[in-house]
């Protein structure tokens, strides 16, 4: 095979993608780095002819922001909880779905529903489910008009209503609601991929396991999971990447306030921070924050890749 001819031809096939990538991916990255290094760069001011000097002022501004650590903490906490939980749940659901015949199609369709609907609308539904209408929570003349459907269910089972997202709600309660919502949104895609992986596994391994009289749980952990590990690694890595970019889900539940009435902005995430800067037309600061976030995601993904290299079999 003539080597050079092959080279040249390969680039022909890549040409359309390369051109589009240059314009709509590479140039924005360069431009973002440029904007990040122009102190207090603002798109509007630039359009008005203002000039900005180079420097790392934007990065300092981002790091010194009072709530920067809070945004980072929220982003990391959300990832650390939602990715493992959604992956584990997706695995169990996929395995369960795979093991039954009757109703399999119907249940599969149901589990794929969240993937199909608009996340903002579902955010509103979740907010309505957790929202408490009433006042004076925690005071002696506490008044609850409606505690929201979730609390109604809790009370039905004898529990006490919890102030999930309203005035005076605790950080953990807010986190819980966010985790439930994000996991709920993340499940369908993960189930799809893992179910796909399961259908790829040769049936005879399971017959062999039966012959070796392996209990159901052991079949899952010693046979299904190792054989699924390439898919699991993929789902976890993309899960983290997606998790770090969490924003619309918080807007869905808390609205622009990004937190309960008693502590606005408490649940803001890194991407939320980027949006705040953008809405004030501080593109310089937004770009700096975006680059910092990209750096973090890169590091986490590299760690994930290393971990999965060791743990992924087959």
């Amino acid at each position, binding site marked *: 095979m003539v080597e050079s001819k092959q080279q040249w031809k390969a680039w022909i096939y890549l040409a359309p993608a390369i051109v589009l990538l240059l314009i709509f991916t590479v140039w924005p990255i360069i431009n973002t780095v440029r904007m990040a290094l122009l102190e207090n760069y603002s798109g509007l*001011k630039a359009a008005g002819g203002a000039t900005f000097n180079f420097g790392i002022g934007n990065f300092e501004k981002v790091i010194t922001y*009072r709530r920067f650590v809070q945004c980072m903490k929220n982003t990391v906490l959300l990832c650390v909880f939602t990715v493992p939980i959604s992956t584990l749940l997706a695995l169990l659901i996929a395995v369960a779905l795979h093991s039954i015949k009757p109703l399999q199609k119907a249940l599969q369709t149901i589990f794929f529903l969240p993937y199909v609907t608009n996340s903002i609308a579902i955010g509103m539904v979740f907010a309505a489910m957790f929202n408490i209408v*009433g006042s004076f929570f925690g005071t002696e003349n506490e008044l609850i008009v409606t505690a929201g459907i979730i609390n109604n269910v809790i009370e039905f089972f004898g529990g006490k209503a919890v102030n999930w997202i309203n005035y005076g709600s605790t950080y953990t309660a807010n986190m819980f609601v966010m985790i439930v919502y994000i996991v709920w949104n993340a499940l369908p895609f993960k189930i799809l991929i893992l179910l796909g992986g399961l259908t790829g596994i040769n049936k005879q391994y399971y017959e062999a396991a039966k012959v070796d009289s392996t209990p159901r749980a052991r079949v899952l952990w010693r046979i299904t999971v190792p054989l699924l590990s390439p898919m699991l690694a993929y789902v976890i890595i993309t899960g983290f990447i997606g998790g770090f970019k969490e924003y619309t889900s918080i807007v869905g539940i808390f609205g622009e*306030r990004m937190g309960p009435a008693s502590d*606005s902005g408490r649940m803001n995430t890194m991407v939320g921070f980027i949006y705040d800067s953008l809405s*004030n037309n501080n593109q310089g600061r937004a770009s700096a924050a975006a680059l910092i976030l990209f750096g973090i995601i890169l590091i986490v993904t590299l760690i994930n890749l290393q971990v999965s290299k060791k743990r992924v079999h087959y």
Partner: protein
Amino acid sequence: MKKLISMLLVLMMVLSCASALADLTTDGYDGSAVTITFYHIINKDNQLEVLNNAIAEFNKEYPNITVNAENAGSYNDILKRISEEINGGNQPNITFCYADHVAEYNKAGAVQTLDELINNPVVGLSDEQKADFVEGYYNEGMSFGDGLMYTLPFYKSTEVLYYDATFFAANGLTVPTTWDEVEEVCAKIKEIDPKSIPLGYDSEGNWFITMTEQYGSDYTSATEPHYLFDNDTNKAFVKKFNEWYQKGYVTTAGLYGAYTSGLFTSTDETRCYMCIGSSAGATYQRPKKGDDGNYPFEVGIATIPQVDPANRKVISQGPSVCIFKKSNPQEVLASWLFVKYLTTNTDFQANFGMQSGYMPAIKSVLNNADFQAYLAKADGGDNIAMLSMKVGMDQTDAYYTSPVFEGSSVARNQVTALMTKCLGLTENVDAEIDAAFQDAIDECEYAN
């Protein structure tokens, strides 16, 4: 390379305006064919119909001006979209806007000042037209700290006090005009109906800013330093209202988890007897008709309570319109003619007011026969919108406008969060209030 093109484009625009500026002060519109785009948030059919009729009417007089009126979503959508469009040099000609929006657009110096056009001998405003504007609304166009005029009012709303007239009459309660009277009435209502929350005030931000105006204390200023609301007067009234909240006298949308108008109109045992909300939302403040076909109680509307009734201060909200600089001066002139037509045409302002429940920007609507009939029908039931319009128009002298500067919208968000947080505090309230005020100031300082 791309960056260079867009810079050149904008530069050319600014330059051309300068040369066009000369004409704007003296010349009129030369009748050439021009298309102007107009962003607005109107999406109700009846209101769109009034607008389209007005455009048709306008085109009779100026056939060559084609007006593309477009519903560009919410105010926030418009702000985000135009901010991006200015970068690309293709912002619209006219848009609905709040004063804070103009502050953002002016970062790029994109908004056309109106002074030249108003005083332009050919197309300018006559003295009667200038005087016809409600003074408070008109001044809002000049609250940018440089004395220049950037916006004209389109239609406005204000805050009014809705109260349960039947309940007040039945219990011999007088409608409070000062905050002290409100406290007394709330105490009495609490005795009569302990399960109730006497007062609901939907917007915490409006409440805070209105109180600073009524006390004459500092809130913000158009010149450096901008954020002045961290002072003892403000902390005092926040503390007072915190106590009211603890006593169960008042609640707000943020604390309640839903609009307090829901409490005011609810028929189950917990409800409000007074609710301060937007005058345009009158229909939401009216309870559902009972099975017997009439309202469970009659709704009264009054001006909101004051610190000093003699020197009344009430917030004015609702959209204004501004015109963007364009390279072709005829576009600017055509846009001005359309804006002038919409804001000064008595019939349009009257019709739109009647359809939307919003208050017209000009006083001459009172000469419009239909409008007079409309106002005459005002009552606490079916025609509640007319009643709120009447009350709104009686308090035009009390309107105040907050200073507008780069980042003034951040101040509004922060004081809203501040007020909501402080009202509900229970332990070491003073320390928490101080911390909350400091937090809000830091957040504002940071945003710029």
